[in-house]
């Protein structure tokens, strides 16, 4: 018997905090700034205790101006720092969209390769927590439209713990979208984990009858649905995209070419979404492998409702996935 545990149980929130702590210990150029990250310990308590551990120079509370502090982060990154900028929710990130798109994503190109921006922006995304239409949307698909940045969507505690490390080593801007509904989720981490690649999707659950492509909170609904379906003999392969830009199409194309059916599950609005992009790539590349039309389950195209029953009805759910898959893989009698 050994005293060192092989695995430790941890919440997604604590995994993110551990990632930040470890990065700050490993590299003194790393610092965290954003609204309420210091004294308050972070809106979702992710940075709780970090101010005490690292002091106000490295854990910096900012004014309520996303444009200003994201711009400051870009400047710091250009001057050699490795800033982690936290934006409280994805809806507020729109105030910094000008900085992200017109500066962070663009300066490497416009400076003829002279200035790269090694900036990491973390923000909370996703609905289902009854915080209404200004705090609940899933806009990561929009950001995936922008060349020049990477868009990560960690869904597991392992990715919550280890994607940040790889993101900080990246020479260019990386946006990490943490689904706020996952912060309390528990999972296990190997005690001796190490940084993960951030440009590959992963087959979370192998299967042969259909490929369910999803990311973020959608992953756990798809997994729940897959377990229900497995009891009736339908084996769904669940793919966690992990990263929306660059989009690892090889993984999902190979999978769909095997199962011949694809369902995309995306909390975001349907029109012009990342699910539309994935569907298009399947048609473009492996049309002749399809045995049924590609289908999508997306968020309802309404501002996120506040009442619980309406909000839940507006989001993809495991039962909807089960019913859709049953219809798609309908067997000959």
């Amino acid at each position: 018997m050994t005293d060192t545990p092989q695995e430790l149980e941890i919440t997604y929130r604590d995994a993110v905090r551990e990632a930040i702590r470890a990065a700050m210990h490993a590299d003194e150029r790393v610092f965290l700034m954003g609204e309420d990250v210091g004294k308050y310990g972070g809106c979702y308590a992710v940075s709780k205790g970090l101010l005490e551990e690292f002091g106000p120079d490295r854990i910096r509370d900012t004014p309520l101006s996303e444009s200003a502090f994201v711009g400051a982060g870009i400047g710091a990154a250009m001057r050699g720092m490795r800033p982690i900028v936290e934006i409280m929710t994805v809806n507020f990130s729109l105030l910094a969209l000008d900085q992200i798109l017109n500066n962070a994503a663009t300066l490497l190109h416009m400076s003829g390769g002279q200035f790269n921006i090694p900036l990491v922006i973390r923000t909370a995304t996703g609905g289902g927590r009854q915080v209404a239409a200004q705090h609940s949307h899933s806009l990561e698909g929009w950001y995936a439209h922008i060349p020049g940045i990477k868009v990560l969507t960690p869904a597991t505690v392992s990715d919550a713990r280890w994607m940040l490390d790889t993101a900080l080593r990246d020479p260019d801007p990386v946006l990490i979208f943490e689904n706020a509904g996952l912060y309390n989720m528990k999972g296990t981490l190997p005690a001796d984990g190490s940084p993960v690649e951030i440009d590959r999707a992963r087959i979370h659950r192998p299967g042969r009858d259909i490929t369910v492509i999803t990311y973020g909170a959608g992953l756990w609904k798809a997994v729940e649905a897959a377990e229900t379906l497995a009891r009736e003999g339908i084996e769904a392969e669940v793919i966690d995209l992990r990263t929306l830009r660059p989009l690892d199409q090889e993984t999902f194309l190979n999978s769909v070419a095997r199962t011949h059916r694809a369902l995309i599950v995306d909390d975001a609005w349907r029109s012009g979404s990342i699910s539309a992009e994935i569907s298009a790539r399947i048609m473009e590349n492996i049309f002749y492998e399809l045995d049924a039309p590609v289908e999508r389950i997306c968020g309802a195209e309404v501002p996120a409702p506040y009442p619980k029953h309406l909000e839940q009805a507006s989001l993809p759910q495991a039962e909807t996935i089960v019913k859709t898959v049953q219809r798609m893989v309908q067997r000959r009698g």
Partner: protein
Amino acid sequence: MGEFRMPSLGADMEEGKLVQWKVQPGDAVKRGDIIAIVHTEKAEIEVEVFESGIVDRLLVQPGALVPVGTVLAILRTDEKGATAVTPAVAPPPKPAGEARPRISPLARKMAAELGVDLSAVQGTGAHGAIEKSDIEHAASLQRAKLAPPLAQPLAVAPSPPSSAEAYQGMRRAIAAAMARSNREIPHYYLETQIDMSVPLRWLEAANQQRPVQQGLLPVVLLLKAVAHALGEVPELNGYWKDDRNEPQKDVHIGFAISLRQGGLIVPALLDAGRKSLDELMAAMADLIQRTRAGRLRSSEITDGTITVTNLGDRGVETVYGVIYPPQVALVGFGRITERPWADKGVLGVRPVLTATLAGDHRATDGRRGAQFLESLTRWLQQPEKL
């Protein structure tokens, strides 16, 4: 005006019975359309027309036995006649409410590969769509129909007369062709041993990338290598006609297919040189299926430029073939068997194939034939280029 005549569907076919017309007077036909079914000693053949035009008159009634060359139908081939009549024979508009059938892209692809007639398949997918499982189901029914248990061969004879009678007819046809070959063609025979370890290893790796039902068989590599080698020794690919050798540009490999009720047919894998291995595999499966169902096209019966006979599955090690006139060569393959094999002073065990060439000495000499076997061996050692 064009004439459509009873075709010669084999070296020694003298007459044929018209079984069925597939067209009516007034129908527009184009080159390659199947317009009649003809019964020969060997099988029922779907006969293609070689001109485009309008069917003017049918001169011979189904059931009639007529000599090769007899005019069966008159075609109007002039532009004016064709355009004037075409609208009248356009397919009638579909009745309202009959939607285009839902067929998945994968199902369409598989149906083409497996030779499944989509119009006869009942879809069981969502909204009645025809999907992969429906094609697999239809293909297995088709196979069951074509490959009946040996216990009841009489019930499924492919030709209208009794199977014993059909078999006698086929034997007579084979007898005529082979006797003529032995009488007229001075055969020479060459034989070589080919180390198959490289191609078989490559095949194993290639098949791991393919679904089981699309797996390649070794014979496909052999056929493709024959086509390539003929590119280097074209004199072996063609016909001896009017006292001279007439090499053909396209390689149509006649592939000897034995029939379950006895006898054999040698339909051609058309354009084998230009087909990929997968296409060749699919074409071969399709050809075997249609041969055994008695549904061959006339071009497949008449256009072979060389014959390959593969008796390896019967345990035979070496095949000395009889050339099918007017062709000038026949390639024989035996069983791939493990043998002691010395290479660079080291003795090992290798899978070895015996390949033979029967050549027509009027058309080529042994040296040219040897170059063919040498080229064949070389192509088989670089299977990735096949």
